């Protein structure tokens, strides 16, 4: 490892005791290293001063994930997290779910409004964890049995992919949770080209649909389910 790279790791407290001693020994005789270390300190100061509107909310979502559950993070790349943090959660009543609202939502999503982001950041931890499970199709997060009446017209089950459905153009993954995680109204979230629909069922459970079907397509499915 390069001396300055080692200094950078020392700065972050990421060296072993022996490595740190060796780095300090080098530092004691090198003005260049001292200046570099001070430079690192200045960079940290600048980063700490960064106003909240400029803070890259790369891992806000990951703050919801306990460190004791590393499996949650597997496969969830930082890039995906960025997309997720820039996405938008909206609350709506099923009967007011229309194309105009979809356009508004997409526009807001594109603009990445502060209000929208704040809604996401304030979202409940359980919901965040649930959505991460869903987006990873995590096997440890097993779904309860699906009702065939929930499957949208024209969609059929995908071979060797449990709970996955397709109409040839769009794909949906359905999951039922035994508790509604405090969700009383349908919520949906856009993450890149995919959507997560959180649909509270009348029996207290939560149906989640995840896929590339946009709201205009998912609308009839959601209305049908929420009417039941």
């Amino acid at each position, binding site marked *: 490892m390069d001396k300055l790279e080692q200094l950078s*790791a020392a700065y972050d*407290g990421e060296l072993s005791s022996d490595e740190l001693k060796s780095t300090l020994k080098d530092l*004691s005789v090198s003005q260049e290293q001292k200046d570099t*270390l001070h430079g690192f*300190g200045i960079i940290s100061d600048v980063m700490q001063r960064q106003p909240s509107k400029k803070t890259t909310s790369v891992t806000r979502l990951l703050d919801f994930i306990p460190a004791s559950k590393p499996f949650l993070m597997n496969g969830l790349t930082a890039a995906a997290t960025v997309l997720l943090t820039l996405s938008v959660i909206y609350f709506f009543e099923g009967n007011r779910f229309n194309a105009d609202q979809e356009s508004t939502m997409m526009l807001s999503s594109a603009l990445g409004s502060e209000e929208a982001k704040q809604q996401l950041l304030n979202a409940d931890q359980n919901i965040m964890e649930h959505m991460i499970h869903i987006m990873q199709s995590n096997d440890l997060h097993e779904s309860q049995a699906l009702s065939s009446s929930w499957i949208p017209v024209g969609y059929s089950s995908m071979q060797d992919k449990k709970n996955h459905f397709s109409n040839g153009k769009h794909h949906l993954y359905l999951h039922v949770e035994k508790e509604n995680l405090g969700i009383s109204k349908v919520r949906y979230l856009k993450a890149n080209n995919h959507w997560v629909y959180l649909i509270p069922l009348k029996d207290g459970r939560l149906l989640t649909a995840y896929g590339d079907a946009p709201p205009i397509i998912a609308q009839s499915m959601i209305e049908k389910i929420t009417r039941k």
Partner: protein
Amino acid sequence: MTEGHQDTLLVNEIKLGNTIAFEAMVLKYQPRLMSSLIGYTKSRDHSEELCQKTFIRVWQKIDTFRGDSALFTWIYRIAINLAKNDFASRQARTAKQTDSIDEAEHDIPQFTSPESTLIAEESAEQIFTFIQDLDQDIKTAFTLRESEGKTYEDIAIIMDCPIGTVRSRIFRARQLILEFMNQEDIYHG
């Protein structure tokens, strides 16, 4: 290792009387402390004086640091207490400070106090913009470390790459930012 424990080994070295470890700590935290103190005192000269006093006090009291909080939090608390006492002393127009530092009783290391480099807001804006344009992987690793305080291990899991790669990316980000600051006459390290 959590964020609060990142300085454990460095602190252990300082407790053993390693003056280079102490100097490293000063180099690391002096910029942040200066910024914080200027925000508090609104005076650069006064802040520099308090900064110097704070680090002397840190050296004197390091044995009492138990690691319950992050090192910088502890340093900052000392600085603010000194600032408050200093302010009270000035208000009372008394020459005797209630929390004065008895330097005669302590062996104060001759540490290099770096010239306080205060980055102007416009320069900070330039740096933020530069960071935004960094390569995605480098920017992500660096931001996870600096803004979120994640450990290298956590970042490796998040980015699904080896720890060595995380270390290189974070260093590369710092290197590029320092080069940019040098090029833009913001800081010459």
